[in-house]
């Protein structure tokens, strides 16, 4: 219809409808294009049409606007060029008269939806009314469909093939296959079934399988089994008689299988039937045959044509020890034959088998365990109907026993032969009747002959017998002939080839007799027993020898049986015990015993003998006369020839005299020891007893001398002092001597410096020398002498004193010179030479000889003139030799004497020197020193106490160890304990040990003892004593020792260095002249502070910070008043504890410091107060 339709579209609308439009002008320039086409290719607008598009249909050569205009009624296909692709667009042209333009309307053409995606176009780029993409989708579905169809066909084909395969099975001829429904009705049968039963499928369809197959002979139980399984849906296998259509029957093996679907539901049955009639028959035959073979005792093997075992019976298994698995597939020979199997026979066997022939042989086989056995094999090839070899059959018979018999016989013969020939015996045979005689080769050889040299001739043989022995031969012959003897054994000598006589053991036996029982033949052996004979003789000789020894020896030999009955006693024993020989034999050996102990001892020894042991012991007995004797017995078990214990043999020696001597010696020793102990005790006692009063005397004198005295009193006291000193010296000398004699004097080994010791000693002596207006000089050559020597300086002093004092004593005018130098050096020690020379009266040679003896003085008068015990020199010499040195003297009467002694000292180092004592500390050390003085002796206590008090110490006394222990426990603050050793109730050692161990108290304890022997010192040190002070002690000695002990003790140091923590300045200012004020304040502090400290501790334990702060505040004022500056900050911390909320960890150390310092202050103030 013509006319105008006024529809105005804006560009957007138009584009929605035709997103692929293209507008071209008369110049074929693209004026506009749709968004979708621009999407595909931007930049089209104002571009020439032909630059981007190509007209496919209709084909126009030389494209022109006018030409196009003419073709507007035609379907148009244009290609948009995009890169290398050309996109086809399908559409049509319209001429827009108004603008003289051509409008192309269309859309791209695709073959599949995928192509749309490839151009990055989406469905939105198409107008909704454009069905193209949807149609493409439809196409796609068709594609999918086609693919699926193909897939399906492939599957079907596969299944078809599988079915085909199965159907072959089903259609096989041999087996009958049938399917039944679950009610038992036959649903399908194969051809095989038909052939087997004679029924065609259609004839039996719908009938039950059982009804078809059964007949009169069908085994009812098997049928029932089948049916039961069927109804239970189980598989079954039965062999039963089945019937054909024609009424004949066969033996059929029916295997039924229930068929279930995936859900486990029974859907049908499937069964296979097989005609096994013939097979069964053959089986039965085979079974019977194999039974025969199986039960056969002989071994039966069946092998294949190559000879490899295929079957064997029980008999074979038993014979060989192998079972079928061991041999199956192997050749019997390979397994059964072994090293001793005859190779010839083996070859024969393999030959026969290879030629498929029969065989028979005897061969040695080996069982599985390696035992040999003999078999007789019979083998036979078995052929099939065609005559081809199918297998071998072999029967094996065990003939081991048969053979063994033969073997045994052969071997015994062999053995006999060997025995005879090999053993070296000669064999002979003699015929009584004919007188014929036979000698074996060995026989002849035994006599040293070769075969031909010695003839089987009786006379010749007889001639060789020793003439003395011929009677033996005659005797045996007579006995034989008289029938009294059938065998004999005799020894005689025969002359051998070398002409020597050898001993022969001849044994023979009658082996055959005549009818009248007379011996006919006798055979025997001759053995060379020459050696044995000579051994016998040697033995006999030895026996004689020993018998003589035993009979004649001085020791008594006694042999008893197991019941102690005497079996034998030799003459010496008889003498020893006093009994006669006849009395002894059979007597019980215990008769000699005197006491229960010796009886017990004997029992013990008997027991030992039964164990087969020998030993020696002493035993007390009494002899026949009843005299007690001591015997030393060496006993051994005695055995018979069987090795059985039959008793014991003892050798006895009388040791009575020796025993006596032993006893005497023991007594003497005990006496000596007792006396030695007594001496020791005496020494100790004397030492103590003497020193104690001496100690008192000299101590008191010293003290008295310190007090105010009148000149007369002083003079008198001096005399007493000198006298007591002298006495002490003498006493010491005597004690030293005793010690030396008792070997109880021990040298010290301490470090010392030589020069000071010498100088000091000379210094002391100078006084004495000056008294006599003599010159005393010291000359030391220090070169090479070690700075520190180790030795006993005290004893060195003693020696030098003695020498010097003697020199001074015996010199009226002139000088005494002391000289010292190095004598010689060794690795760790030096020898020093000391010379003391004087210009004194000298000694004459006779006296010099006895100089060093005890109590020697030149004249009786000398002692009165010069005094002295005369012990000095002796002691000096003893000391020197104890030190390892030597002394010598040169003297000329009227000129003078020189004493030279050479002493060794070990070299030491500075460290060996004992700790130095500080004399300047004396005053400080002893002031206020708390001393516990323990001594049972009132005098001793008085002396020590006075001394100590004078030094400024505070002394507490205890009368014995027990009291001391009690006092120390209470911790009364002692600084040192002076402990006497010998005290009643509890001595010093026990008390010290108690204090140390039980109470763990480390207070210094000094032993006071009169016994200062080194061994005792050790004991004291071990008990826990720190030092030893020997009585009597002097003030310097006491001071020095105490200083030394105390300087090792730190508490003293602290005391020395303790500063004053308080300052009374403030108090002093406050007191302004009020005398009472300060002590009042101090007392207040002293009384209140300890309580406050306790309260503070409580508060801290209870974490009560406010209470702590309050107490701290109280203490603070006191602390500042007393100027305890050390605690200023600490007390403030405690005071502020609660407000600052100080932690417990911080409080604890602060409080501890406060507590400590306050305690010291309290103590220091307590002292201070006394001054007020």
């Amino acid at each position, binding site marked *: 219809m013509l006319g105008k339709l006024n529809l105005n579209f804006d560009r957007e609308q138009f584009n929605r409808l035709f997103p692929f439009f293209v507008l071209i002008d008369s110049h074929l320039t693209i004026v506009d294009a749709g968004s979708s086409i621009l999407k595909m290719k931007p930049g089209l607008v104002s571009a020439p049409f032909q630059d981007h598009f190509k007209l496919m249909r209709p084909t126009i050569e030389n494209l022109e606007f006018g030409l196009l205009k003419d073709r507007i009624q035609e379907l148009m296909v244009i290609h948009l060029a995009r890169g290398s692709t050309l996109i086809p667009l399908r559409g049509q042209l319209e001429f827009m008269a108004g603008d003289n333009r051509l409008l192309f309307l269309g859309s791209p053409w695709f073959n599949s939806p995928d192509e749309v995606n490839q151009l990055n176009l*989406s469905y939105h780029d198409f107008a909704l009314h454009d069905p193209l993409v949807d149609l493409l989708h439809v196409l796609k579905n*068709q594609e999918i469909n086609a693919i*699926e169809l193909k897939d399906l066909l492939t*599957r079907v084909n596969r299944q078809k093939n599988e079915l085909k395969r199965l159907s072959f099975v089903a259609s096989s001829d041999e087996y009958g296959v049938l399917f039944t429904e679950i009610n038992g009705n036959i649903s399908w049968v194969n051809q095989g079934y038909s052939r087997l039963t004679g029924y065609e499928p259609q004839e039996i369809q719908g009938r039950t399988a059982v009804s078809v197959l059964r007949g009169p002979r069908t085994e009812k139980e098997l049928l029932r089994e089948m049916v039961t399984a069927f109804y239970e849906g189980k598989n079954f296998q039965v062999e039963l008689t089945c019937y054909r259509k024609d009424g004949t029957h066969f033996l059929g093996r029916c295997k039924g299988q229930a068929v279930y*679907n995936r*859900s486990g539901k029974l859907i049908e049955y499937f069964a296979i039937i097989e005609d096994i009639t013939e097979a069964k028959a053959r089986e039965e035959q085979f079974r019977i045959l194999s039974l025969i073979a199986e039960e056969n005792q002989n071994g039966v093997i069946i092998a294949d044509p190559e000879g490899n075992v295929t079957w064997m019976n029980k008999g074979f298994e038993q014979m060989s020890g192998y079972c079928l698995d061991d041999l199956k597939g192997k050749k019997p020979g390979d397994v059964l034959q072994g090293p001793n199997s005859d190779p010839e026979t083996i070859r024969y066997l393999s030959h026969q088998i290879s030629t498929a022939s029969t065989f028979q042989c005897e061969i040695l086989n080996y069982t599985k365990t390696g035992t040999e056995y003999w078999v007789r094999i019979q083998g036979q090839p078995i052929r099939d109907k065609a005559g081809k070899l199918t297998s071998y059959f072999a029967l094996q018979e065990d003939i081991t026993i048969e053979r063994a018999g033969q073997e045994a016989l052969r071997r015994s013969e062999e053995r006999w032969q060997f025995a005879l020939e090999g053993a070296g015996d000669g064999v002979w045979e003699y015929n009584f009747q004919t007188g014929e005689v036979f000698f074996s080769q060995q026989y002849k050889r035994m006599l040293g002959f070769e075969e031909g040299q010695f003839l089987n001739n009786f006379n010749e043989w007889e001639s060789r017998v020793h003439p003395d022995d011929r009677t033996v031969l005659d005797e045996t012959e007579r006995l034989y002939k008289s029938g009294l003897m059938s065998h004999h054994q005799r020894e005689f000598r025969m002359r051998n080839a070398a002409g020597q006589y050898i001993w022969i053991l001849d044994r023979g036996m009658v082996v055959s007799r005549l009818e009248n029982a007379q011996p006919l033949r006798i055979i025997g052996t001759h053995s060379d027993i020459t050696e044995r004979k000579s051994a016998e003789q040697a033995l006999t000789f030895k026996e004689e020898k020993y018998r003589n020894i035993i009979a004649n020896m001085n020791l008594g030999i006694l042999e008893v049986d197991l019941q102690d009955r005497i079996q034998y006693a030799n003459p010496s024993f008889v003498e020893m015990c006093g009994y006669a020989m006849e009395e002894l034999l059979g007597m019980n050996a215990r008769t000699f015993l005197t006491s229960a102990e010796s009886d017990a001892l004997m029992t013990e020894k008997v027991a030992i003998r039964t164990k087969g042991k020998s030993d020696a012991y002493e035993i007390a007995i009494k002899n026949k006369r009843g005299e007690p004797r001591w015997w030393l017995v060496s006993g051994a078990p005695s055995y018979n020839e069987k090795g059985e214990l039959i008793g014991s043999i003892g050798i006895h020696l009388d040791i009575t005299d020796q025993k006596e001597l032993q006893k005497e010696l023991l007594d003497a020793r005990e006496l000596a020891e007792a006396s030695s102990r007594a001496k020791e005790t005496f020494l100790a006692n004397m030492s103590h007893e003497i020193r104690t009063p001496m100690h008192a005397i000299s101590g008191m004198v010293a003290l008295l001398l310190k007090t105010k005295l009148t000149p007369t009193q002083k003079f008198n006291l001096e005399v007493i002092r000198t006298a007591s000193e002298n006495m002490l010296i003498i006493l010491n000398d005597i004690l030293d001597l005793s010690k030396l004699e008792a070997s109880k004097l021990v040298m010290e080994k301490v470090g010392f410096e030589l020069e000071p010791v010498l100088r000091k000693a000379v210094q002391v002596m100078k006084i004495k020398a000056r008294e006599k207006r003599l010159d005393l000089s010291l000359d030391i050559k220090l070169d090479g002498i070690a700075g520190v020597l180790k030795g006993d300086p005290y004893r060195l002093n003693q020696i030098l004193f003695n020498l010097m004092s003697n020199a001074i004593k015996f010199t009226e005018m002139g000088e005494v010179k002391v000289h010292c130098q190095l004598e010689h050096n060794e690795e760790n020690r030096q020898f020093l030479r000391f010379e003391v020379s004087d210009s004194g009266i000298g000694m004459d040679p006779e006296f010099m000889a006895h100089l060093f003896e005890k109590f020697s003085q030149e004249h009786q008068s000398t002692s009165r003139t010069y005094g002295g015990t005369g012990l000095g020199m002796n002691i000096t010499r003893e000391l020197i030799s104890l030190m390892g040195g030597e002394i010598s003297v040169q003297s000329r009467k009227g000129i003078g004497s020189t004493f030279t002694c050479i002493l060794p000292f070990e070299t030491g180092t500075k460290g060996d020197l004992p700790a130095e004592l500080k004399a300047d500390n004396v005053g400080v050390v002893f002031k206020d020193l708390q001393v516990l003085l323990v001594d049972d002796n009132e005098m001793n206590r008085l002396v020590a106490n006075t001394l100590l008090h004078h030094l400024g110490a505070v002394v507490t006394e205890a009368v014995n160890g027990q009291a001391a222990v009690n006092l120390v426990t209470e911790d009364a603050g002692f600084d040192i304990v002076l402990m006497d050793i010998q005290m009643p109730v509890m001595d010093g050692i026990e008390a010290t040990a108690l204090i140390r161990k039980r109470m763990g108290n480390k207070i210094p304890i000094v032993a006071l003892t009169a016994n200062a022997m080194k061994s005792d010192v050790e004991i004291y040190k071990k008990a826990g004593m720190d030092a030893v002070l020997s009585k009597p002690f002097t003030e310097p000695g006491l001071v020095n020792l105490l200083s030394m002990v105390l300087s090792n003790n730190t508490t003293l140091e602290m005391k020395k260095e303790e500063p004053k923590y308080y300052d009374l300045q403030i108090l002093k200012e406050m007191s302004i002249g009020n005398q009472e004020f300060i002590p009042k304040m101090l007392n207040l502090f002293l009384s209140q502070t300890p309580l406050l400290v306790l309260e503070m501790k409580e508060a801290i334990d209870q974490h009560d910070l406010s209470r702590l702060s309050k107490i701290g505040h109280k203490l603070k004022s006191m602390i500042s008043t007393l100027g305890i500056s050390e605690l200023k900050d600490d007390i403030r911390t405690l005071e502020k504890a609660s407000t600052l909320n100080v932690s417990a960890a911080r409080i604890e150390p602060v409080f501890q410091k406060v507590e400590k310092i306050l305690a010291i202050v309290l103590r220091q103030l307590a002292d201070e107060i006394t001054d007020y």
Partner: protein
Amino acid sequence: MYGIVNKAIEELVIQKFGQEKWEAIKERSGVDIDYFVSIEPYDDEITFLLANAVAEEMSLTIGEVFRAFGEWWVLHTAKQKYSGMMEAGGSNLMQFLKNLPQFHNRVMLIYPRLTPPEFSTSHIEDSSIWIHYRSKREGLQEFVFGLLSGLSALYETPATIELVQSRDTGSDHEIYKISW
């Protein structure tokens, strides 16, 4: 439903549980169809039988089965066979959901025997939308749920889906609120 749906169920089961299990499930379902032809329509009942068998066999609820199926449908089947069309639906989740009604209308022509459900939208906000689902069929609510969650996964826009109302609770149609 078209065979492609049942085929999708088969693919889902085989992929997740294996061939054996699928055989068992098919056996259990009683569905005796050897092969599903994609473009052939099958009785709806078959789909339900299969889904039930899956639920029974795998001890899941039928709802869980349909939901899983819904997701699978979007993420595998649609993606493979309808990828273009899915894109056409929209370039993001909101667009697609807004276009859902149109989408189904388009599909109707290609599958003549398809009785598609009716989808409409409402309560469109910046990131949430209500989808109304009207269908003659019963029992596919979970399937729809699965489809929606599948879409959210497809557009990589994790979303929460609420069932605002349902026929199960007396309403006449289902409304799903999807927000992300």
